[in-house]
């Protein structure tokens, strides 16, 4: 027996489908969103009273479609267009592939590189996932009218500059997919970071799961889903009772979400390692499996090869330090030093490796220096605690 709450939660899935298809057929983003929202609102009003229909998704689509037909008829839209909308989802009991294509089109359009990165994230949240603008605004620390303008402006640009409503084909897909994945990754970190909005991590996972279903032939999509699941599994163990960050080696592993770990490992097991997300997921999996440092160090060597960056070098130094002793880590850190000037975390890493090498006074000084440069209060407190410990 489906409960009303579960059925409405499932409406999330229908929301994206309705919006995506109505945009393709009408070209009108606002109409598509309004109709999808009205369908969900109608469900919230009627289902508790009349019971959940046998096919909740179909019910929502029918209500949204009829609403769209009403609006378009009043706007005196041409007959052929009206008929096309009126026929939508008429033979939809077996989920034609066309609908899935629409959601992919919507995701690729929202994540088009001609839009500013923050606009892409906001538009994806609003249009694909149906997150209220007020919630998006709160997560981005701006006023709601500012976020409304940002989303409106992005939609106007899509129309004015004619950003195509299409999944790019051939080599263009390979060029554009990393941008889509980067939007999901940013969304996830928004939810996962120290001061983040936890619901966004859940949205990122849902979107990654959807994308992995829609693009089964793209290993980096599945790899991203696995990475999200494995990182998210540690969410509850990352903070202590004061809200302070707990480093991986000190986390209470019984507080990890083992169902999420199992799903992440299953997804990863059938994903070939072909890109940076797969390597990062392998690293996260190594941590979930009891933290095999030599193996993690090897994966960081691979990551430094395919996607070199100062942060990767920093993490590589940490991994080598744990796998082969602090001297190995400090030597890699010294080599990476020129690129790490703007990264306070590099001081904390040096402090940690120095402590492990046994030079306590120097380690304490470095931890204090790292605390002074820390970007958040939570991290500052954690580093001062380490300075007192060593």
């Amino acid at each position, binding site marked *: 027996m489906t409960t009303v709450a579960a059925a409405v939660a499932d409406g999330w899935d229908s929301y994206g489908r309705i919006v995506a298809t109505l945009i393709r057929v009408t070209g009108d983003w606002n109409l598509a969103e309004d109709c999808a929202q009205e369908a969900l609102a109608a469900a919230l009003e009627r289902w508790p009273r009349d019971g959940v229909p046998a096919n909740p998704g179909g019910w929502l689509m029918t209500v949204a479609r009829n609403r769209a037909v009403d609006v378009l008829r009043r706007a005196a839209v041409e007959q052929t267009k009206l008929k096309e909308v009126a026929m939508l989802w008429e033979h939809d009991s077996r989920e034609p592939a066309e609908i899935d294509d629409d959601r992919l089109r919507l995701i690729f359009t929202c994540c088009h590189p001609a839009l500013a990165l923050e606009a892409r994230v906001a538009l994806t949240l609003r249009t694909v996932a149906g997150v209220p603008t007020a919630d998006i605004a709160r997560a981005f620390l701006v006023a709601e009218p500012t976020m409304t303008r940002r989303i409106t402006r992005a939609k106007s640009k899509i129309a004015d500059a*004619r950003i195509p409503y299409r999944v790019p084909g051939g080599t263009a897909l390979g060029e554009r997919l990393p941008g889509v994945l980067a939007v999901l990754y940013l969304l996830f970190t928004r939810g996962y970071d120290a001061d983040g909005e936890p619901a966004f991590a859940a949205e990122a996972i849902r979107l990654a799961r959807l994308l992995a279903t829609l693009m089964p032939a793209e290993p980096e999509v599945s790899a991203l889903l696995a990475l999200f699941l494995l990182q998210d599994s540690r969410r509850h163990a990352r903070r202590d009772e004061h809200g302070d960050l707990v480093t991986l080696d000190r986390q209470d592993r019984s507080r990890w979400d083992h169902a999420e770990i199992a799903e992440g490992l299953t997804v990863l097991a059938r994903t070939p390692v072909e890109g940076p997300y797969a390597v990062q997921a392998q690293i996260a999996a190594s941590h979930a499996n009891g933290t095999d440092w030599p193996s993690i160090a090897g994966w960081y060597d691979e990551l430094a090869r395919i996607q070199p960056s100062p942060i990767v070098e920093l993490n590589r130094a940490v991994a080598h330090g744990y796998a082969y002793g602090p001297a190995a880590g400090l030597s890699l850190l010294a080599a990476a030093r020129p690129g790490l000037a703007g990264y306070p975390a590099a001081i904390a890493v040096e402090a940690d490796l120095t402590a492990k090498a046994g030079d306590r006074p120097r380690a304490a000084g470095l931890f204090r220096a790292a605390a002074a440069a820390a970007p958040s209060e939570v991290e500052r407190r954690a580093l001062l605690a380490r300075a007192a410990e060593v």
Partner: protein
Amino acid sequence: MKYMMFVCTDTEPETDESIIPDIHAWVAENDASGRRVLGNQLAEPSAATTVRVRGGEVLLTDGPFAETKEVIVGFDIIECADLDEAIAVAVAHPMAHNGRLELRPYVGQ
């Protein structure tokens, strides 16, 4: 869909190691495909005259309307199906590699 493509200099161009396309080949190809409606190089901004009419009076200023380090050195009007096609045309232009291009759609198309 028509786009005005402003061809601009870039005062701090990042080094582009790829092979810079040939402008004559670019013009020939896009003229042949019908995507390039019109276009040309422009004289130095020092040759520009800015014109305003205020209170019925014609006001002329020597030079461009905005003094910037980056200057418009040419333009092309291109006709493309959508922005992705216009971007592909721009990427193949030599000034995308050692200058910068701005794609501006015609209004209300």
